[in-house]
């Protein structure tokens, strides 16, 4: 069974993209969309960056 725990959804890339997809489908023409998109991208950037911290050689 392929299940992501509910508590981990906020940092699950695919779940974030799915949520963003739904938001884009509903609100891509609103003035809020660019702000939400920028916030999503920034959040993903931080998530990716934070996960790389342990990789310094």
């Amino acid at each position, binding site marked *: 069974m392929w299940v992501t725990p509910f508590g981990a959804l906020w940092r699950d*890339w695919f779940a974030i*993209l799915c949520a963003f997809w739904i938001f884009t489908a509903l609100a891509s023409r609103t003035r809020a969309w*660019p702000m939400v*998109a920028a916030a999503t991208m*920034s959040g*993903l*950037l931080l998530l*990716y960056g934070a*996960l*790389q911290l342990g990789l310094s050689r």
Partner: protein
Amino acid sequence: MILGVLAMVVANAATLLGARAMLSRIGTGRPAPDAVLFLVLRLLLISGAVIVAGLTRTLGPLGLGLAGAAALAALVARGAHRNPPRLRPLPWSPWLSLLAAIIGLRLLLQVWFFAPAYGDVLSYHLPKIAEWIRAGGFTRDFGPDPRSTFPAGFELIELWWTAFLHHDVLIEMAGLELLLLAGASVYALAREFGWSSSCAMAAAIAAVMIPGLHLQATACMNDGAVVAWIAATAALTAARVSPALILAAVALGAGTKPTFAFALPGLLCFAVLSRRDPAAASPGRLAPGIVSAGAMLVGSFWYVRNAIFFGNPIHPMGGSGMSSIAGLPLQRFGPSFGSLVDNVRSLLDLRVYDHLAPPSASHLAISNWGVMSFAVGFPALIYLARSEDRLRRLAVSFLVSLVCVWSLVVFDLFSARFVLFVPLVPALAAARLIERHRIFLPIAALALVFQFATTFLPAEISREAASRMARQSWRERTASPLPIEASAGRPIGYLSDYSGTPYWLYGPGFSTPVVTLRSNTLEGLTGELKEHRIRVIYLGELGDSKRRMMRDDERNGVLRSLGILVR
């Protein structure tokens, strides 16, 4: 050495002029797809020249240099050098030119300071290059790694960059040529989608900076080359050039690695979805047909060779795939839904975060798609998929390719490198979104800086190894952590049943002969050692019988009594 440099310059000038002369017959008149066609033609000419030189035993500075000089003289006599293409003014923002120059300069420094350092490359990609350079032509001994008979289209370009200097200092230039093709193809795709030159250039830069693609370019690995051929095929399809020219890119891609063929259903899907787009001006049938026939000869060369020598065009693959000597499956034959599911799950659960290992050329446990795709590209694709028809078609087609490739390869720690073409789509989407909404530029810029900072060194080259290589003179530069014990004039013996690092034994200038030892008994081994006057043996991965033989020797001391060093 001066003769080698001169021959390299002349032969490269001949291929550049030759490609341009051919382009004048088959070009579309549009700069972006013509740039892709030009690079395809140059790679075709190089590949063809190396095959001919390999077969005629003229694979050296003299043979290639004289052929290049003759071709250059003929081209100049026909006036091919007249009306050089106008490069300025560049149609994109000067900031993008600066960025491309910085990336290009760093890549050239990486070519100069890196030396081959990766498992598969040292085990079976490059030993045959060393043998062919030493022999001045193709030889039949492919070494002990059975994978050395895989198609070697990329190795032809590597041979081109090693044959003139009889040295591997420039061998990574082959990867750069293909990275340039990938970048030019992404640029052409964006232009064909109707986007501005600056947007197309930004997409090309984002594509070239995809960590996996970027690190593969200077690692002598061929998965990046496959991505370049996939991108070129897609770009020529989007430009609706003559089908014969698309077939030429397909043939050269298939001659590079069979994983290109695994991705073909997606490319076919893209061709079907693009069939109603306006076609490029037709150059007639003859010239594209000749180019296509030449590419098919080059691309099928390895399969024909395997059919002749081994009775099987895809040797050493059989109906049951291929396993390592430890019994681990290396390659499967036919599709597997389980492989696809495992690969997709692994991507979404783990690999897409790129956090299990540092960026590497081998893609160990990571996707290597980078933060640009992760944070900017995919969200951009979600937004643009509704309005950008042609981008959506490409995304759907590459998804089909991903499904096919991951169904046809074994799921292992490195299998993400076979779908490195996927992040080209988010690279395109990111550039387009930034063009439409400047608000996202700082985030994308930060992502690009991050990717630039993390791609100075691949994980396979440690800081110590990089520092050691930088201190070495270019003539002696090698990634081998220990000096190779060579006795002057005598060959080194290499005993293995599978993988190892035999390429290092030849030395960067291919000065040391290496003999593959095939005996499974001590008696046979000592006979081989005497016959070739070998004093040093290096061991690779041994199968049961050779391991038993070496254990016997440890007990009896036969090799020690003969003064043989075993490493």
